[in-house]
């Protein structure tokens, strides 16, 4: 995948902003992840925010919950769009993995980060 690949994080409240800030702080990689909050949006406005964040580029869209307003907005606008893959349950491990695997083809990078993100959940 080219380095045009973008990660768009769509979440409730300030979660996306915080996750992107943390991922950039840890990795030192900037201008790849774009946060989008659903604050104050109906579905149409949230779709617009997501579209502006994607900006026509191939993207992995990370969503916080596996259902709800953020996921509905993404899929309503981008379902079937070949250059957009959606991964739910975003966490910091997932985003860090994404930043260092952007050379993979889009479907593969999406599967890869989903696997890494779920693998980061452990009970000790």
């Amino acid at each position, binding site marked *: 995948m080219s380095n045009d690949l973008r990660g768009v994080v769509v979440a409730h409240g300030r979660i996306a902003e915080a996750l992107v800030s943390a991922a950039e702080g840890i990795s030192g990689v900037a201008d790849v992840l774009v946060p989008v909050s659903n604050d*104050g949006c*109906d579905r149409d*406005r949230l779709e617009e925010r997501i579209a502006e964040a994607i900006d026509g580029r191939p993207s992995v869209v990370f969503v916080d919950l596996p*259902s*709800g*307003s953020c996921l*509905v907005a993404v*899929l*309503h606008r981008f379902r079937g769009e070949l250059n957009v893959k959606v991964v739910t349950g975003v966490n910091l491990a997932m985003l860090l993995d994404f930043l260092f695997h952007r050379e993979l083809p889009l479907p593969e990078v999406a599967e890869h980060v989903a696997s890494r993100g779920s693998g980061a959940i452990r009970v000790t």
Partner: protein
Amino acid sequence: MSIVLYRIDDRLIHGQVVIGWGRPLGAEFIVLVDPEVSGSEWEQDLYRMAVPRSVDIIFADVEEARRRLPEWQADRRRGMLLTGTVAVMAAVCQNGTGIPKINLGGIHHRPGRRQRLPYVFLTDDEYQTLIDLQQQGPKIVAQDVPTAKAVGLDDLA
């Protein structure tokens, strides 16, 4: 127990509805009245994902909702009826029959709407529709989650 919550929320089924209201109210079924979603299988699948398996979900357009409202009101289970707009709720609740209260959840900014609360924006026409609806019986209050203060229609003018 019939329908224990009538709510207008432009995000339709989402966390505030399922978790914030559904759990404390013990909702066993949700009626989503939305012309677009009622005609879209894949959108219905999407909204089903937001609802626990123990909760039944019914998708309806306005005509079906008006016809079946008495049936849902007589249901032995506890239910919630949702619409995405003031206009659809007004169309469903003609004459306010058997409806004690209508809850305004998230109605967000669009051109022509004015902010009444951080989560409620209404055009003057929408506000007037709510006044007319309230005069038919149901008390109309804005309250995004159960722990928030309920705000009456007069305070949204």
